């Protein structure tokens, strides 16, 4: 395992240049290092504690060592000595990807044959030492995949998590990838993704960032075949001095393709988020649609969002839009809700949940929504992240845009008596 300071000069300089300043004491843990946490016990506690309630079986658990290999048919893990497959990532000439690649010890290969449906759950634990994982997804024609990746780390340990995705989809393939980052407050989080799509295929990529001291993502998603669509959903909820540097390209290359990016950041304390959303419609991608929406809400005076939406359109016959808006919490809304008896603390919770409601609709399964909202609400209440809170939504909560269609209250994904 390489140490940060032993990296080739070029790589480390590029890394320094583009990353939000990483505190000196964390740098050693990007390339190597770690703590002395009983990782197996930590994972046991997770599986037998809060994760038990949601009844998710993890096909793969990766920590400082491979902790569990499941028997899911579509997912395999390649050890360092099988590293040849990793070169696909390395060849893309992206220095950042090369950095993770150079330090990667695991390649997760997910293959979904044509015509088949697959589901895979992966737990990544960076408690003890850095975890750098490349996830290679190959989907055949007319296949579907629902992938869930949960990233956590024990409080107190110092480490990093690098997570790369390369997704290749055949014709009419449908994929939903949900990545929930809830690493601890001493973690550096690096994320990278790119894809290639077959005709009429669809990709939805949902990412929740609640954890990590410093998080940096560099994603490029292309709707590069006719009628293909990519729908990227980014949810950022920061507190303390967390820093997020999230940069995503959505590119229309295929005719009649759809590419969209929705980024939402709610920030507390003195946390900071850069949301960089770039949309591009290339020449020839006629009748395509594209949008980039960035929204921010500042829950405390010291929080800051830099929204940088951008759009480049080289084709005439298209529909495209981009926007960015960030504002502090509306004092009138707080007064209005408090005047009906709701405490200020609960009002904040309602506002944060409401702010993320639209993003939550992008999760295909109610379990994903429940986990995501539990992470957000737990952090809102306790400002603690890294470990997993109890999963469950205490209050009744309706996804407003889903409700009222047909039956009264249809759309409640949590209707309790």
């Amino acid at each position, binding site marked *: 395992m390489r140490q940060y300071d032993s990296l080739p000069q070029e790589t480390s300089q590029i890394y320094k240049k583009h990353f939000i300043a990483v505190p000196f004491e964390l740098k050693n843990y990007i390339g190597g290092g770690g703590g002395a946490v009983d990782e197996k016990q930590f994972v046991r506690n997770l599986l037998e504690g809060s994760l038990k309630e949601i009844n998710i079986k993890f096909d793969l658990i990766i920590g400082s060592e491979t902790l569990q290999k499941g028997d899911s048919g579509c997912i395999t893990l390649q050890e360092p000595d099988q590293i040849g497959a990793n070169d696909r990532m390395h060849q893309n000439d992206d220095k950042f990807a090369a950095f993770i690649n150079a330090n990667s010890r695991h390649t997760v290969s997910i293959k979904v044959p044509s015509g088949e449906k697959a589901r895979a759950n992966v737990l990544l634990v960076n408690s003890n030492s850095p975890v750098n994982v490349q996830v290679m997804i190959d989907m055949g024609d007319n296949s579907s995949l629902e992938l869930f990746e949960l990233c956590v780390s024990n409080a107190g340990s110092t480490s990093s998590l690098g997570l790369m995705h390369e997704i290749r989809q055949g014709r009419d393939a449908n994929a939903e990838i949900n990545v929930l980052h809830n690493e601890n407050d001493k973690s550096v989080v690096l994320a990278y993704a790119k894809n290639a799509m077959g005709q009429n295929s669809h990709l939805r990529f949902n990412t929740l960032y609640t954890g990590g001291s410093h998080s940096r993502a560099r994603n490029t998603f292309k709707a590069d075949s006719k009628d293909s669509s990519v729908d990227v959903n980014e949810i950022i909820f920061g507190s303390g001095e967390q820093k997020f540097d999230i940069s995503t390209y959505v590119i229309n290359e295929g005719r009649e393709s759809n590419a969209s990016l929705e980024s939402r950041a709610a920030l507390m304390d003195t946390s900071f988020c850069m949301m960089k959303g770039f949309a591009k419609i290339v020449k020839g991608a006629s009748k395509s649609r594209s949008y980039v929406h960035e929204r921010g809400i500042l829950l405390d005076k010291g929080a800051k969002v830099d929204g940088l939406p951008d759009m480049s359109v080289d084709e005439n016959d298209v529909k495209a839009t981009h926007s960015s808006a960030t504002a502090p919490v509306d004092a009138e*809304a707080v007064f209005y809700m*408090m005047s*009906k*008896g709701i405490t200020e603390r609960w009002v904040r919770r309602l*506002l944060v949940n*409401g702010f993320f409601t639209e993003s939550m609709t992008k999760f295909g399964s109610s379990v994903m929504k429940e986990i995501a909202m539990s992470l957000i609400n737990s952090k809102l209440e306790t400002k603690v992240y890294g470990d997993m809170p109890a999963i469950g939504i205490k209050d009744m909560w309706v996804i*407003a845009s889903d409700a*009222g269609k047909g039956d009264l209250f*249809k759309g409640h994904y949590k209707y309790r008596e």
Partner: protein
Amino acid sequence: MILEIKDLHVSLEDKEIIKGLNLKINEGEVHVIMGPNGSGKSTLAKSIMGHPHVHITSGDILVDGKSIRELKTDERAKLGLFLQFQNPVEVEGVGFINFLHAAKQSMGDESSTKDFMKGIKDNISNLKMGENFIGRSLNQGFSGGEKKKAEILQMAVLKPKMSILDEPDSGLDIDAIKVVSENVNKFLEGDKARSLLIITHYSRILSFIKPDFVHVMVNGKVVAEGKEELIEKLEREGYDSYLKE
């Protein structure tokens, strides 16, 4: 609940809006404050509920003999005060039903979700509202009439002891005023101890909701008080005579 306002002086952005106002509302009474635009009626309502931008410079607001000046807005609501907003705030993403459920729970109501839903359905029907609207974001995209009805629905569900209705008739058509009034009267009949303070410019709604006391507010003060005959006088003569004083 007895609400008593004593020599109240209130400033908004360093400008004095209310200049020595006195008012007492006993249990079961219906009061009306009428007055021209800018006379401080809505500021009074906000003062009672503790709006953060409204500053009480002197005087006091008492509930059952105890000052509420230091209480937070939600604590005032928990005492039994309720404000129907003239312009309800739109809150994107927060479902009306989630908001109302949170408010109901905040009031200490532990009834089952099933009973809560039934109560809402009944009130929706009484208010002649479409069922779909409560699944929408709080007040977002509501018509003027829907917003007012949604406030009355909240009142019916939360069951406050003292309701302040700030222009409950503005933006409503004739039929909607009648529906809103019927529901307000029904709410009052549900508990004879419930009291009401209506703030309005116009007398139309007062042909449906009969007030016990009428107050005319001009330039931050109550300048005239009386009963129903005062409404008829205002209807005939307007506020001119009070503005000239």
